[in-house]
């Protein structure tokens, strides 16, 4: 149990997906202009990450390792993620129309989000258990959502701030990320 808590906290705060591991930067800068869409994107990514981690853990431990074809992991993981995203999209479309309208446009983007492929590869290199993988994915996703939420709040204010013309938009967002990153490095000694 303690180990799971350590994995979770490590993923959310210490090795934050965006600010420390540099995973999922495209949505971090692309979808962080409005709080609403940032949070929706964050939860959609968390959901896909968790499901993908469970699926790839089973595939790795029951197919790849026994047959000694671990070198195929990249091709197989990316196909699994792409298929999962399609299935989730179809499922949500049929069962929950409101959720589909909220998540719909983000789902196809998630296939090529490096946070999702990243967590499956991290789970593989760390050799987490099934529960460990799921917790790591959940923590990573929530850490991603947290930072995306903070960033979008700041960017909504930044839009109205008097920024030099050359720094408007992306450059000032990067400088903001620097300060967020410095703040998060304070969590470094927690565990």
């Amino acid at each position, binding site marked *: 149990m303690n180990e799971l808590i350590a994995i979770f906290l490590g993923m959310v705060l210490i090795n934050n997906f965006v*600010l420390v591991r540099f995973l999922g930067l495209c949505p971090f800068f692309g979808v962080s202009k409005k709080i609403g869409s940032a949070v929706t994107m964050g939860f959609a990514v968390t959901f896909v990450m968790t499901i993908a981690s469970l699926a790839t853990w089973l595939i790795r431990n029951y197919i790849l390792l026994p047959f000694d074809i671990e070198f195929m992991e990249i091709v197989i993981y990316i196909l699994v993620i792409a298929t999962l995203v399609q299935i989730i999209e179809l499922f949500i479309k049929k069962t929950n129309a409101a959720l589909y309208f909220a998540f719909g446009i983000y789902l196809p983007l998630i296939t090529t989000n490096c946070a999702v492929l990243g967590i499956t590869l991290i789970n593989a290199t760390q050799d987490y258990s099934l529960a460990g993988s799921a917790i790591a994915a959940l923590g990573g996703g929530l850490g991603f959502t947290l930072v995306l939420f903070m960033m979008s709040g700041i960017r909504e204010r930044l839009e109205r701030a008097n920024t*030099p013309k050359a720094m408007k938009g992306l450059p000032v967002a990067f400088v903001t990320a620097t300060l967020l990153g410095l703040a998060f490095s304070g969590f470094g000694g927690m565990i």
Partner: protein
Amino acid sequence: MAKFGKEFAKGLIISNPVFVLALGLCPTLAISTSIDSALGMTLAVLIVLFGSNVIISAIRKFVPSITRIPVFIVIIASLVTVVRLIFHAYMPQMHEALGIFLPLIVVNCIILGRAEAFASKNPLVHSIADALGITVGFMLALLMISFIRQILGTGNLSVFGVDFGTLPVLGKHPIVMFILPPGAFLIIGLLMGLFRRTGVMKSE
């Protein structure tokens, strides 16, 4: 030939993958801690992008447009697997340094972006020029960022074990922040601002 030159040159500045298109940010920020790993990443991207642009451009007339994205992804993933195995066998240190970002080239938007936007619509020769231009643009951006980060963060300039000397003050008291993650965000943000201020690239 003129068209070849044009397709090559546009990747350098006008549509520089990092500073203008803001694609492939994850590897750019993560592995720009040293010039060595920046060059290693460039080599990996060169092989994959060259291979994928050539293959996709060659088969563009046979792939039905509905299934094109999965086809592209499988081609790219296979190329990345090949590169990963080559790096593991011949450059184990580089394989270690690039870590998870070597397999993550699969989802690097630069590769799929070029496949979708260029190679699937243009003939072979132009696609090769495009791949080379984009890779050189990517390399320039990576070198610029990793050079500044390595100098400020370690005070030392060495490339693949060849030492070009240590700076007097920085060598003793390096600004460690620059090789830590926040330093990457700061450098890329300031460089982008600088390029827009000087008019090399357009502001928003």
